[in-house]
């Protein structure tokens, strides 16, 4: 009897086990948690969200790169490497930048890998828009074209950024299945095709101000043509953009009277905005990765109200460039013959009178210097805001700095260094005008070229674009007087100016104007490289700047090598396919 009972019990339990086994198939099916698969997104709403994701990669943050390594401003590669700015801080901080700043970039420098990865993640997101859009059935042809054109625009941008940095890079698009594609084909035609498609298929007013339109695509297309020296192809596109273009809101392109509007978050997306990365503050992310994290190091140090970190200090060479002559024109060749007086080596509590010579007011929106209003934060106090003057000079960056009066809205202090809602311009209208001037000058239309340059200079000379002294130095928030903070004198080139009498001279003036207008905005290195004067200019810079600071003592630009940065070694290694490396290293870096 007892035995039977056990047998029954055991049989039941065994049966349960066996049942469990047969159920195990479904028992072992666990759903995907916290993510979606492609079919769920194959509709208009989904594709739009993937496109938003493609825009979100513009800030270079959380996309496989680094924080400042993949900043969309290219402040390290475009400005520090070109002599606009020193790395700043002190010698031991972020040492890979020291090497980039002195022309000693090597393939294993992790910064390049970060930059590479961030751009290709952007490209991957664009490709996903194109892939998923093809699967969606609920999108109208028109909307679909817009989504695709925007995605191709963004892809063009990411590739443009790679192209100017690394030159030969592999082309990955929505049809690519082998990610180990060689870099043996010049991708300019592909970039051009993407912008052309966007230019031809996008409307003048975008669905949202942060999205791109036809004119942004036109401007980028023309810029792409200029980079390829296809000046005559570029001119009609520039002309179209300059004459008919509007920003995404539909406002006709132009230059606001106040130069600073470009960097004041309260004035973002104005008529000068062609293509900008939208930045936010305090938007509930718990970090500053959507708010200029790439620039977080670039604030005054010491007892400044910003806390961190004293990077990105304008150079003596750059500051001298803003000297103007009696006619309010720049010294194209001899700008360094006189050094703008600085407080280098002077303690903050020792007396100091700023330079009294004539200057272009754009200087004081570009470089913070002792005794001049640092936006509405008070007069720059000099050495006590600088981490190590001997290492990288007495100046502070300014374009990326938010205003005290509006800091609660536009600055984000959740992280150890500030974030801000200042948009990053990839292309602004002044840039378009100067590129157009360059194309016109190359094509021999020197008058048109000068007109374009003068539009830029005219704005610089407007009273709204000058910096004024404070009503009360001890209470900068009380506002400004009408007394200029320095001896400003900037004028347009007069009709018949000898500078625009020859192509060579005109180009020199245009190149110099780009330096002044777009300084510290990450353009100069790539400009110098495409102009073919990088070795001359940058070595000249090293020789000059060495007298003041110790950071670039080792500086040396090697012609034929340094025009491009090295393909990241990590990527070369990862390109191995069946034991063969598919990526070719750039010349001089092998």
């Amino acid at each position, binding site marked *: 009897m007892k035995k039977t009972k056990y047998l029954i019990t055991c049989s039941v339990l065994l049966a349960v086990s066996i049942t469990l086994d047969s159920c195990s198939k479904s028992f072992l099916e666990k759903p995907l948690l916290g993510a979606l698969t492609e079919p769920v997104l194959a509709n208009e709403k989904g594709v739009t969200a993937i496109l938003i994701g493609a825009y979100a990669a513009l800030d270079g943050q959380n996309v496989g790169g680094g924080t400042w390594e993949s900043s969309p401003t290219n402040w390290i590669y475009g400005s520090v490497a070109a002599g606009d700015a020193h790395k700043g801080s002190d010698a031991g901080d972020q040492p890979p930048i020291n090497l980039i700043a002195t022309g000693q970039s090597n393939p294993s420098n992790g910064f390049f890998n970060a930059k590479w990865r961030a751009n290709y993640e952007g490209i991957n997101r664009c490709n996903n828009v194109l892939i998923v859009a093809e699967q969606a059935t609920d999108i109208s042809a028109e909307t679909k074209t817009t989504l695709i054109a925007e995605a191709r625009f963004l892809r063009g941008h990411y590739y443009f950024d790679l192209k100017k940095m690394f030159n030969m890079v592999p082309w990955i698009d929505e049809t690519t299945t082998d*990610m180990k594609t060689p870099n043996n084909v010049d991708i300019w035609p592909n970039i051009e095709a993407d912008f052309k498609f966007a230019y031809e298929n996008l409307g003048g007013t975008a669905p949202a101000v942060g999205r791109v339109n036809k004119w942004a695509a036109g401007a980028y297309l023309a810029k792409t043509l200029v980079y390829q020296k296809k000046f005559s192809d570029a001119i009609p596109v520039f002309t179209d953009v300059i004459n008919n273009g509007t920003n995404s809101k539909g406002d006709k392109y132009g230059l606001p009277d106040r130069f600073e509007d470009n960097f004041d978050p309260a004035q973002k997306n104005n008529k000068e905005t062609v293509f900008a990365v939208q930045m936010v503050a*305090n*938007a509930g992310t718990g970090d500053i990765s959507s708010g200029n994290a790439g620039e977080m190091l670039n604030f005054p140090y010491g007892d400044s109200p910003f806390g961190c970190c004293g990077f990105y200090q304008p150079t003596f060479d750059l500051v001298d460039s803003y000297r103007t002559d009696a006619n309010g024109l720049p010294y194209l060749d001899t700008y360094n013959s006189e050094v703008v007086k600085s407080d280098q080596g002077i303690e903050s509590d020792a007396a100091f009178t700023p330079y009294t010579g004539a200057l272009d007011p754009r200087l004081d929106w570009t470089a913070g210097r002792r005794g001049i209003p640092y936006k509405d934060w008070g007069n720059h106090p000099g050495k006590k805001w600088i981490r190590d003057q001997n290492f990288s000079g007495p100046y502070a960056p300014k374009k990326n700095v938010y205003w005290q009066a509006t800091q609660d809205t536009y600055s984000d202090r959740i992280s150890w260094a500030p974030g801000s809602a200042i948009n990053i311009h990839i292309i602004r209208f002044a840039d378009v005008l100067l590129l157009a001037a360059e194309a016109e000058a190359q094509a021999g239309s020197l008058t048109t070229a000068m007109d374009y340059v003068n539009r830029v200079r005219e704005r610089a000379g407007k009273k709204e674009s000058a910096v004024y002294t404070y009503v009360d130095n001890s209470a900068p928030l009380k506002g400004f007087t009408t007394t200029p903070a320095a001896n400003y004198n900037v004028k347009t080139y007069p009709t018949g100016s000898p500078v625009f009498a020859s192509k060579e001279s005109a180009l020199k003036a245009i190149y110099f104007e780009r330096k002044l207008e777009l300084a510290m905005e990450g353009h100069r290195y790539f400009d110098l490289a495409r102009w073919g004067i990088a070795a001359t200019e940058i070595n000249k810079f090293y020789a000059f700047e060495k007298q003041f600071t110790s950071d670039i003592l080792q500086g040396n630009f090697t012609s034929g090598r340094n025009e491009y940065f090295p393909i990241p070694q990590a990527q070369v290694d990862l390109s191995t396919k069946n034991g063969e490396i598919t990526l070719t290293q750039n010349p001089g870096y092998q």
Partner: protein
Amino acid sequence: MHFTRLACRAMPVLCLLFSFLFSQAQNQTVTGKVFNDADRKPIPGVTVTVKGTKTATVTNEDGSFTLRGLDPGAVLQFTSVGFQSIEVAASRADMVSMKSSESIMSELVVVGYTSQKKRDITGAVSVVDVEQMNKQPAPTVTDKLQGQVSGVTITTSGSPGEPPRFRIRGFNSLTGSNDPLFVVDGVPTTSITDINPNDIATMQILKDAGAASIYGSRASNGVVILTTRRGKGKTRISYDGFYGTQQPKINNPYHMLSPIDQANLKWMALKNTADLAGIPVAYSDALYGSGSSPVLPDYILPVGKMEGDPAVNPSLYYVNPNYTDQADYAKFYRITKANKAGTDWMSEIFNPAPIQSHNISASGGSEQGSYLFSMNYFNQQGVLSNTYNKRYTLRSNSQYNFNKNIRIGENLAYSIIDNPRITILDEGNAVSMAYRQQPIIPVYDIMGNYAGTFGPTGLGQATNPVAARQRTANNKGLGNRLFGNVFGEVDFLKHFTFRTSFGGEYFSFRGNWFDYPTYENQENGSTNAYNENSGSGFNWTWTNTVTYTQSFGEHNIKLLAGTEAYNERGNMLQVKNTDYFSFDPDYTSMITGAGNPTVNTDGTDKWSASLYSLIARLDYNFAGKYLIGATIRRDGSSKFAPANKYGVFPAFSAAWRLSDEQFLKGLSWLNDLKLRGSWGIMGNQLGLAANNQFTTFASGRSSSFYDVNGTSNSLILGFQQGRYGNPNAKWEAQKSSNIGFDATLWNRALEISADYYVKSVSDMLYPVTLPGTAGAADVPYVNVAKMRTAGLDLSLGSHFDVNKDLGFDITATVTTFKNKIQYIADGNTYFEDQGRRFNSGGIIRNMVGESMSSFYGYKIVGFWNSQAEIDAANEVARKATNNPDAVYQTDAAVGRFRYDDKGAGIVTADSRQILGSPNPDFAYGLNLGGQWKDLDFSFTFYGVSGAQVWNQVRWWTDFYPSFAGGKSQTALYDSWRPDHMNAKAPIQENAGSFSTNGAPNSYYVENGSYLRLRNMQIGYSFNGEWTKKLGISRFRAYVQGVNLFTITKYSGMDPEIGGGDANSFGVDEGAYPVVKQFLLGINLSF
């Protein structure tokens, strides 16, 4: 009596009370029963003698005996042929177990899903001496095992509650977990940090496939099997406790400079830099003036002021430490005196701290069943302020025997842990800040607010470590876990036993912490934020097995078959709010902040996974001489796609007891000799993400949202590719072979157990780094990598009695293994980790042909002692490269490091090489125990040999340009100078360079070998009349010293660097050091 038994069943606590009363009323007649400890069968014919008298009797057929007319507190001696003699207090002699004189070899040992006699084990299994192990006062079982078992390497940390690095036979996974599987009372789990060590009855470590493979997909890192204690015999109440103090190393353990020497070093660096550039030196410093010798100021804020200066008038002072807006902060006027004598930051944050443990247990058992109830309170205060580990555990184990054939029971433990810890291995932790913060800075300013690096003073960017620690004082966190199982066993049809066990855990945790705004540091955070996290989850395992045991003559068979199902689910959430009106911890909560609550992505997750397995096992032996074991398991996992869900893991093992063979029988000195061999396959899926099979789209507020409307303060949802899926991923296969022997010689005067093994992991799941062109989505695990580990485990034991009063127990263990990565993936010949401040890849490289976590960088071959040396080297470089501009080494200069070019004539990225490895050549443990009359003593030594440590602390302290923080005496007194070329550190300069601190090089690699006296304990057992009168069966008191000395050449605080991952460990950047402890403890039983 009947009532008592009932009470015992109902309420263990009542039971304690009654038993206590009854034990007081003991009469002078003793009736008892003697059992064989191994099989619980009665032993007839045992001689029972009353100690010190001639009174004696012999047990009858059912093992029982009766003795009358005994003195209270009499002691009985039990002797029998084939068994070890024992002594038991008469009051406790009702149920006496005797161990076979083959003793330990005949112990029943719990192995995979069943138990075996130790002598019949065919796989590589280490049986832990739990009593010996528990002599370490460490909080967790895993800490205590250091040096106790061969084949197991354990690296601990001084940080209370920090789980040690626990490796059984080295590495088995490149990127996933290398932690073993723990099986507690039959329930698999990944963590035993909350198990009360006093509750452990037995512990076995299954090291090879022959033993562990039955745990299939979770076995590849080895398996640790624990059983918890159960009641036996009469009610027994015990108290075990200790109290002690822990002594940190203080008094400038990093050999930092004094304030004036810091200034002298700055002057030296300025001079050296000017000399190198060939320009006259200009001394200038906001603090130290501009004279030819630096002068210390009276104040560091306002900068460099002297006493009497109007700027240091206290009436100007204004600091609001709890500021909430920038405008208030802008008004701060700080006044901080220079601490010319120097602040010893280590002493400021490290203090002696108490450690204590109290354990009470009650247990008992009879034929009807058994119970055990225990409570433990453990409290280790950290020597670093505001770190501690408090643990409360409750356990209730019981078993009821319905009748001869049916048993049911439960094992249940509940734990609560309160354990704030610091991250132990980074440059931002409190220990790092203590050497990075300059000594001229006082802890507090003139008004008692914190002082720090703030200001244009060039004092660096370290933070005040005292402030950082004190600001954590109100943080709270609790974790709790209910862990256990219920089981039933039925014996049927004579030879069968069915067992079912349903067990698992439910856990939850919750914590809150506040981020204060700071004002004293160079880089201050101005936001105030309150953070809260919580999570919970469960997992269960349901195991059903049927065992068949039979003997036919000399053939002994045990066959087991079963199923096991496992399911887990959990979630966690972390949120944060900002802008608090008041920072009062009683006020702050998630809703009282004025900011927008935000969800932390890293702290928020949900997960779910399952496993289903079929198990079979065969153990066969012939005459105990020829032994064979075979196991097979088929596992299915939810983490794999349907086509690859299942994996099969077979293993075979065999042993031959040579000592039972005729030709060896005659050797009287050879008690036992067994040869063992095994082969099998184990699996791994621990590192595998649950979503591995899916290609996904995901959204992240910080990564895929965008302010497409240009609002400046809001974001719109976007998607990004979340993961590349790999539906083809399958089980990885670790093939493991083992050969070994166990020998007992000269009646246990020598016991040897040795094993040699080879493990080859193929198809190892590795998250292959995709080329950047694939984007940044999470990469899938793919079956690609290969790794091989071979090693030797050796343990020696000796037990001998010098005479009746003096006996010794000695065990020694040696663990050694060599690990080699054989293949990673196409295009992935290495992967790096730990960039630290070099920012060029990593100082750790896991590369093909090398062992895990190897150090990588430039090898220093000396200093450049003259320009001529540099010129000569450059000449060689020019010839080697055919480039007239070539230089041998970037930034080469007199006084800097010269790097090895590996014969290339020029130093390039290819000149980097493996500089060492944190893996020791071998690790060893030595336990010496002894007894002399009532005095007992034990010593435990532990050592590792041939391991290196990457001492990253040196980057901060030995190079002037590595940020303006605290510097070492090496930097000032033992750096290269023209008159001191035989130096340790290079020339001190104002700026860093590739040839000094700018590149990872061998300057940081140090010998990390050490020998440590882990434990020393001396105890005395009181065996007087008075103990008997009080009904005390055991009363022992002891004194103990832990980590009393360490012999090492390592220059840092301690060479044992805990923490880190399997593929990146051994980097010391201010590790929480292991500390000295002095303890007093007692063991008391009634």
